[in-house]
């Protein structure tokens, strides 16, 4: 158009200057945001360093000392390593078992909770909010808290860790499961309802087949996370490899070969289950896509 370049409201010049103004304002805001973030990071870092036992720069120098010591000692005693693997293998199995059982229990409870808290599926629609809040709380309680309290009541060992992780898993998986449930088609449910199915039959025959692959995929992911959690809980007294690790490094000198062996075992176990679970998750999601 001929008058596009003329000045006036809505003209090109106006639009251009408006655009420039907007861009610079946007840039200013992002700049301020970045500045605030950097300031927060720097001051937070200084604060954390101030409250820390040792300083950051001082620590950087000996950052590799401990790993080097562990590796060095493990290397000099490398003949022991296979024996140590065999010695700590039962503890590793216990750690993996804790993770597996708690994932299974957590997933079973999460299924029930998620079905009860999904709109359109819930058995008691009025109580959806209640079940959701319950899951929020279960998710929010750190495992270590329940584990420590249960260790007081039940004594040390794998059971407190198992209950603690299962409790947290219920909340975490319940939320993910109910998000999956929301996408399930309600048509099979109507069909089942028309032939007089009860609520549990509707869920089992109408919903579960639709969502099972996604459930399984999330549960596998959780299993990965739970192996790590189970190792950490062992460290505070709940049995398994974490506990042996704590004993070995508390021993001070002379047990670094054991600690090294356990580091290696833990690392490869975590990698192993990561690979397996991501392989199966790929397959599950892929399979679900083929059907859809």
């Amino acid at each position: 158009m001929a008058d596009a370049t003329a000045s006036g409201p809505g003209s090109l010049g106006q639009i251009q200057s408006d655009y420039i103004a907007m861009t610079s304002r946007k840039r200013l805001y992002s700049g301020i945001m970045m500045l605030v973030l950097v300031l927060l990071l720097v001051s937070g870092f200084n604060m954390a360093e101030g409250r820390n036992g040792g300083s950051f720069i001082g620590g950087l120098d000996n950052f590799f000392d401990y790993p080097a010591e562990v590796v060095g000692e493990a290397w000099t005693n490398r003949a022991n390593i296979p024996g140590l693997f065999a010695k700590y293998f039962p503890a590793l199995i216990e750690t993996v078992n804790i993770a597996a059982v708690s994932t299974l229990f957590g997933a079973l409870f999460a299924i029930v909770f998620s079905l009860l808290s999904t709109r359109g599926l819930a058995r008691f629609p009025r109580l959806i909010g209640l079940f959701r809040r319950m899951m929020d709380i279960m998710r929010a309680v750190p495992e270590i808290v329940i584990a420590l309290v249960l260790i007081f009541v039940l004594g040390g060992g794998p059971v407190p860790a198992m209950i603690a992780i299962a409790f947290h898993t219920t909340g975490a998986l319940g939320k993910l499961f109910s998000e999956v449930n929301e996408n399930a088609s309600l048509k099979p449910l109507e069909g089942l309802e028309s032939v007089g199915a009860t609520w549990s039959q509707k869920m089992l025959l109408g919903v579960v087949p639709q969502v099972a692959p996604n459930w399984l995929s999330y549960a596998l992911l959780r299993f990965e996370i739970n192996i790590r959690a189970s190792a950490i809980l062992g460290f505070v007294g709940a049995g398994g490899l974490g506990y042996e690790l704590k004993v070995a490094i508390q021993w001070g000198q002379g047990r670094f070969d054991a600690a090294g062996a356990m580091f290696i075992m833990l690392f490869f176990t975590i990698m192993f289950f990561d690979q397996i679970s991501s392989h199966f998750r790929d397959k599950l999601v892929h399979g679900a896509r083929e059907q859809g």
Partner: protein
Amino acid sequence: MAMLDATGDLRAQTETVFARKRMVTFGILGLISAYFVYIFFAFGIPEIWAKADGQNARTLVSDMITYKTHITRDNRSGDVSYAIEGEKKGRYPEGKSPDWVTTDGDTTVIQLGGDQVVTYGPDVITMNIPEFGLMSFQVSRSSGVVAEYPVPVDELPEWINASKNRVAITTEEGRLSVTRNRTEVFRYFLGWELFFFTLDSPYHGMGVGEVIGRMFSGEFSDIMDDFWNNPMWLHKEVFWAIMETLLMAFLGTAGAAILALPLAFLAAKNFSPIMAIRFGMRRVFDFFRGVDALIWTIILTRAFGLGPLTGALAILITDTGSFGKMFSEALENVDDKQIEGIRSTGAKPLQRYRFGVLPQVTPVLLSQILYYIESNTRSATVIGAITGGGIGLMLTQAIITQKDWEEVTYYITLVVLLVIFMDWLSGKLRAALIKGDEGGH
């Protein structure tokens, strides 16, 4: 279904398929049950059940919701002192006493609930329980505790535990214990003691209305100061501990995100043409994630000492691995057309990344970062328990002493509220981010 053949007997085929499916289902269920049975014995559940300490559980629950006031008499000097939870910081100031205790010269009368009365006399200590009768105890250096009961000694009920040097009587209302050195009465009350003000504060025992009234009449800072420095509940320390936990989560997550972003470019197929670098970078990410936060924590504690910085670094290193992996996947999914467009205006590579790539991935990355901030708040509690920082440390210390269960409950409540708040906040921010993004373009 591919398994059905249209030419044959459909019904029979369907039944075969169903039978097979049923078998698979029951097979899986059977395997799971067998695994549970194995675990039942591998974890020694029968033994745990047998030796589980019901007493510990009862102590825990009752201590969570009640507190006790100790009335202690030093049997040698005859001095009587009153202290909540028997702690120094809960002691009544000189000349003050709970209103259910009356002192008259050398005699102290303690009213327990249910008309039970304990009297500390100069020589004799008596306890009167209405349905049971009057008991009296005399303490001497030579013969220990000499007691008189309304029933013969061999018919004493089980709530009286008596030996030569020690008598302990536990009722619903409280507990009396007499030893040679001292006599002690516990009376239990519902609630958390001295939560707002300790006994030495002038505001202890004031009504809520009065305290609020005084707040507005110029005593605000005094009131807050007494509350803030409460030695029993340590509100100030708890607040800073929570801030420390949040700080660990924030530093760890933000630091990991900043580190992971450039590294993710090196690991993404469409930005890093050299396969060896790509492969190496991915293995580095795997290594960071695979060496668990626990191992990083141990290594870092050796290098940097105990404290929040160590915890933040442990989160930072583990999450650099996770973020690196996720960011590089997000980068591989970007649309090339926008980059082409930027390139056509003559932009240099750095400008292409800034204007062609970052706007596409920012919402995805920010949403992942926000999700991690929430989950790292929880991790920071756990890591804090090991590296000695934040609310995690206070929590484990309170649990390890095995007596301050009301404080444990308080800290747990705070942690749960904190995580729920972070969850809510990150959800809100993510929603705003996605919405803002749709509106903005």
